[in-house]
């Protein structure tokens, strides 16, 4: 137990644990709270005008066994009408180990030419490196994260959505701030079948859901959107803006090596044999994959460095590429993941959780830009109990990322 966080956790004073509040305090505080007038609900959509929750995700549509080995997951679009399960795209997986490097393509039984994982990644590297290099006053990103929950006492699944926008200054110093705005977009039934079950349950505007690992915890998700919560924070040490195995500034990111071997060596200087979020052991390649996924997904690196990152991934053993997949926004792309359960330690909801997740990055082969990162259920358990293998349990979709001279509206 060498991780400082683990040691701190163990040193929590006992009285700060989960002891019940004494009855007198409870009565006094509740009385005081309820003596106050309640505020009227602010701008809410009129009841009659509530848009029907649209199915956003297809779940577990791929054959379970195939999905476990290939992590090929069917996701349907948000285009208003969800494709039926039979037309959902399941994707085709290829892996570095299956396809020898000497043969960049092979003909599959169905007649389609399959490219090796390495070839696909090298092509993406080439495209990524060819993108124009721009900078500006702010690195601006907009993303939507989605997480699946099972409804409490009913047989359907909902997807909860949150939009996050952030501005990172290229300037440094004690006066600089990183700005963010986040907004809950509400929960909705995950598939047409789930929507039918939700209607059968009376189409509740607040959906009670199962909270794994917490005895008696109640959680209900509003179906409507919440307010935008704005925040700002000074840059740690006056210039650090991202975590890439260690804390880095915009200048550090732009000065990263653009040669794959040198980039790998630079990243590995922060590798200590354990995961990025815990002290659980994590292999070198799994760790590199996790950190590199973050770099490609939302960091302001030069096109050459993004290209080098793809080249480095192409050189890792156990890399798997799945073409023809769709992200949660319905955009077509290609997924890359790495074999090995420890690659997904950060998706675990709780200690003792025996479920296995796998992290994958979906990118656009034409530009080498990231579309989304997803955690896919390999073995259900914990927060993913009752979900089919192959289900995308949560995802962060990048809607925008780029430089701009326009800062956040104050």
């Amino acid at each position: 137990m060498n991780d400082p966080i683990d040691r701190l956790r163990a040193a929590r004073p006992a009285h700060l644990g989960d002891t019940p509040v004494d009855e007198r305090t409870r009565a006094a505080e509740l009385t005081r709270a309820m003596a106050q007038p309640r505020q009227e609900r602010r701008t809410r959509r009129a009841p009659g005008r509530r848009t029907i929750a649209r199915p956003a995700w297809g779940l577990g549509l791929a054959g379970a066994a195939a999905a476990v080995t290939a992590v090929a997951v069917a996701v349907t679009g948000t285009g208003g009408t969800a494709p039926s399960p039979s037309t959902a795209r399941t994707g085709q997986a290829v892996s570095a180990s299956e396809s020898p490097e000497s043969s960049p393509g092979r003909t599959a039984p169905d007649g389609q030419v399959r490219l090796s994982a390495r070839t696909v990644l090298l092509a993406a590297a080439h495209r990524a490196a060819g993108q124009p290099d721009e900078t500006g006053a702010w690195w601006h990103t907009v993303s939507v994260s989605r997480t699946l929950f099972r409804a409490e006492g009913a047989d359907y699944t909902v997807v909860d959505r949150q939009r996050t926008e952030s501005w990172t200054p290229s300037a440094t110093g004690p006066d600089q701030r990183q700005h963010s705005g986040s907004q809950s977009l509400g929960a909705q039934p995950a598939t047409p079948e789930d929507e039918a079950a939700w209607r059968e349950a009376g189409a509740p505007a607040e959906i009670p859901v199962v909270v794994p690992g917490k005895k008696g915890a109640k959680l209900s998700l509003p179906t409507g959107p919440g307010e935008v919560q704005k925040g700002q924070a000074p840059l740690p040490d006056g210039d650090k803006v991202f975590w890439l195995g260690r804390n880095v500034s915009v200048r550090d990111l732009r000065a990263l090596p653009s040669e794959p071997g040198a980039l790998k060596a630079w990243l590995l200087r922060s590798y200590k044999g354990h995961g990025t979020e815990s002290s659980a052991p994590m292999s070198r390649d799994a760790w590199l994959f996790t950190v590199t996924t973050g770099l490609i997904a939302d960091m302001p690196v030069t096109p050459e460095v993004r290209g080098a990152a793809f080249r480095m991934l192409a050189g890792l053993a156990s890399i798997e590429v799945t073409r023809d997949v769709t992200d949660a926004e319905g955009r077509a792309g290609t997924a890359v993941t790495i074999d090995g359960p420890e690659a997904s330690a950060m998706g675990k909801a709780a200690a003792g959780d025996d479920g296995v997740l796998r992290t994958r990055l979906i990118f656009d082969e034409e530009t080498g830009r990231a579309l989304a990162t997803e955690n896919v259920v390999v073995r259900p358990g914990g927060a993913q109990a009752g979900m089919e293998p192959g289900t995308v349990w949560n995802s962060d979709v990048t809607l925008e990322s780029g430089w701009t001279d326009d800062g956040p509206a104050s």
Partner: protein
Amino acid sequence: MYDECRQRVWAYVVSRAGRQVADEVVSETFAIAWRRLEDVPEPALPWLLGVARNVLRDTVRAEARREAFGAELRAWIAATGDGVRRADVADEVTERLGVLAALAELPEDDREILVLVAWQGLSPRDAARVIGCSQATFRVRLHRARKRLGRAMENPVSPRPRVRNLSEELS
């Protein structure tokens, strides 16, 4: 919501500003939650911790928070010390004392982040919501805080007077 979250909100406030002010801050937090019940999202805990954080900032000055936390920490250490006399768990107690003393050395911002993750068990996603920053920013700050905590645990002797007082009490 009250029964589910009250003690965790209380624990958060205690770990920031001590027991003296905790009941008042918690009481005000739930009064605000009641007034704005329509706005309280689910899960409520991160939202409530965010409200408690604002109440704390608006009602207790930074200097007073530091002093109150120092007093709280001495109480924890005294309570942990009692353990030594009661049972033969000296190693464990020494470890706890070392960790708490290291925590006391950190700036308030670092302490808050570490407590949200280690003691409140929040995910980076939820903890970022409490603080009002993006997940990416939170990871950067968590990384720095964790490093500082690690350093403080390795080098327990500190030149800073506040901590010197503390180590006197430890001896």
